[in-house]
């Protein structure tokens, strides 16, 4: 064996939040992100919720429900795209929960735990990989929408801002999913989270239908649902029909500000919580 000197970072403490320099942390995150992307490439079916599902939903909603739901001030095609984006990105965060729950059940987690790495990189790397698949999802939704006749009169900057608004929300939500994954007994129970929490969250909103026709109590919930703010924000930025603009609830009057506030709030609460759950889960 040829002797090789391994450069060991010199910091001595090396505890939970202090291990390594910023550059080293970024490298750890990059390594973990790449690892998760390799996972996806090995099991491409994992990507079905950000590729097949968006195409399916777009076609279903536009051609199946499109004719039946009248939209004041425009077509259902123009109305639904922001909603489809929010729906697909919200439900795809289930992948974060399942992925983390799976990692915790495999031997790899014990390997990672004995390495002198920045441990939150396990979580951040997961969220980064999921953000990248979310971007792919956004592209698929936009392409399918364009093919089906969705158009926008907004400039390039507001168009990008609309996508960024929804992606940022999905990113913050993936940290909530991380909390769920870290508390799941198995990957399967993490998956059920999607159906129990994410689908109602996505559907009880203005994403698919205007909230005006809902019963009063349900409309109140829908108007304060962060998914509604995000969807209305994107519609506003894209100059697409936005019936929620007529609703007096504050988030519907200021959808962009409201959705940013929701995303920041969720991220600020869920990210530290996920780190805490991770530490608790991995220290027995």
């Amino acid at each position, binding site marked *: 064996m040829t002797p*090789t000197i391994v450069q060991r970072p010199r910091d001595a403490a*090396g505890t939970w939040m202090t291990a390594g320099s910023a550059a080293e942390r970024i490298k750890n995150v990059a390594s*973990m992100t790449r690892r998760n992307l*390799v996972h996806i490439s090995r099991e491409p079916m994992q990507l079905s919720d950000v590729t097949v599902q968006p195409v399916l939903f777009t076609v279903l909603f536009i051609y199946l429900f499109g004719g039946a739901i009248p939209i004041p001030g425009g077509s259902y095609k123009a109305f639904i795209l922001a909603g489809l984006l929010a729906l697909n990105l919200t439900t795809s965060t289930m992948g974060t929960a399942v992925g983390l729950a799976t990692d915790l059940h495999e031997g*790899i987690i*014990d390997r990672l*735990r*004995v*390495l002198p790495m920045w441990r939150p990189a396990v979580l951040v790397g997961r969220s980064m990989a999921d953000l990248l698949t979310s971007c792919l999802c956004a592209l698929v939704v936009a392409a399918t929408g364009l093919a089906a006749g969705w158009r926008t009169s907004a400039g390039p900057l507001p168009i990008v801002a609309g996508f960024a608004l929804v992606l940022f929300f999905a990113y913050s939500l993936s940290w909530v999913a991380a909390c769920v994954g870290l508390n799941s007994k198995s990957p399967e129970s993490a998956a059920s989270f999607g159906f129990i929490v994410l689908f109602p969250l996505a559907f009880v909103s203005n994403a698919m239908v205007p909230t005006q026709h809902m019963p009063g109590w349900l409309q109140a919930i829908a108007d304060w649902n962060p998914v509604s703010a995000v969807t209305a924000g994107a519609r506003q930025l894209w100059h697409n029909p936005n019936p929620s603009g007529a609703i007096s609830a504050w988030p519907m009057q200021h959808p962009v500000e409201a959705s940013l506030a929701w995303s920041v709030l969720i991220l600020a609460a869920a990210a530290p919580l996920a780190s805490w759950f991770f530490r608790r889960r991995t220290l*027995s």
Partner: protein
Amino acid sequence: MADTMIEADSLVKSYGETRALAGVSFSVPAGTVLGLLGPNGAGKTTAVRILTTLTLPEAGSARVAGIDVLASPGAVRRQIGVAAQDATLDGLLTGRQNLVLVGELSGMRSGLARSRAAELLELFELADAADRVVKGYSGGMRRRLDLAASMLTRPPVLFLDEPTTGLDPVSRQRVWEVIRDLIGSGVTVLLTTQYLDEADALADRIVVVDHGQVIAEGTPRELKERSRSAHVEVTLAEPGAQAAEAIAPLVGGHLSVSADGLRLGAAVDSAPGLATALVRALDQAGILVDNIEVRQPSLDDVFFALTGAHIPGDDNGSAAEQPSAAERESEGARA
């Protein structure tokens, strides 16, 4: 570098009702190999998990490379390599990707991690399978890859938890060679094993644990001497009742005779010239002897003497002893 690289002091750990460790202490001087020997459930893995920062003890303290494991687990992780009992690998990555990931996450530059991974894949004879997904590896291949991962950063302290369990004899031999090479390079090793021959062959010192407690400690030679008993087996050319009478005074009367009357066995205190004395006594009685064997105590005999139980899966002491002696000879011939 600290003189003592691994130090466990009165470690206590329970899992529910089960007391995995009931005050275990041992230490490993720099550059030596300690064999932690004991049956399944003795507490070996728990001790390793505490020393490698994976589990917190309820009481006691531990130091690795002079660093307090409980106070500075992050700093300890920079000094250790770990091969766990259940291979800890990413099934969806290739063998090479697994090693590079471990290297990068340990702070190695990517290029260095890559070249070191290639080197270890070669060393553990995994080069052909390097770019295949680990999910398709055999059990033996996984264990070898896990060992490679533990050595990737050339850590000064290595924890090998039952490194050869489940390996075929050839792979086992290969792992032994690699561990011997490491010892030569000054690495401190804590090796847990159920195999007496493995502890005998690799460890400078042995700590025997059972039911969460240290029940014996010493060099392999010291432990064998402690049990003192040797085993004598005489095979006669033809059955004869007088044979037992002739050797009874020499073996203390604890004789067993096989059904055909041809083989006599006895546990004896090992004494110089015992074989000569036996042959002389039998010759004087006019008995023809085909074979006579005086076997020194194996570690299994020692373990039996200490606990009253044989090591699981290793219940025939001579079976464990024979191949190990042969292996050591071939080893010596190669060196």
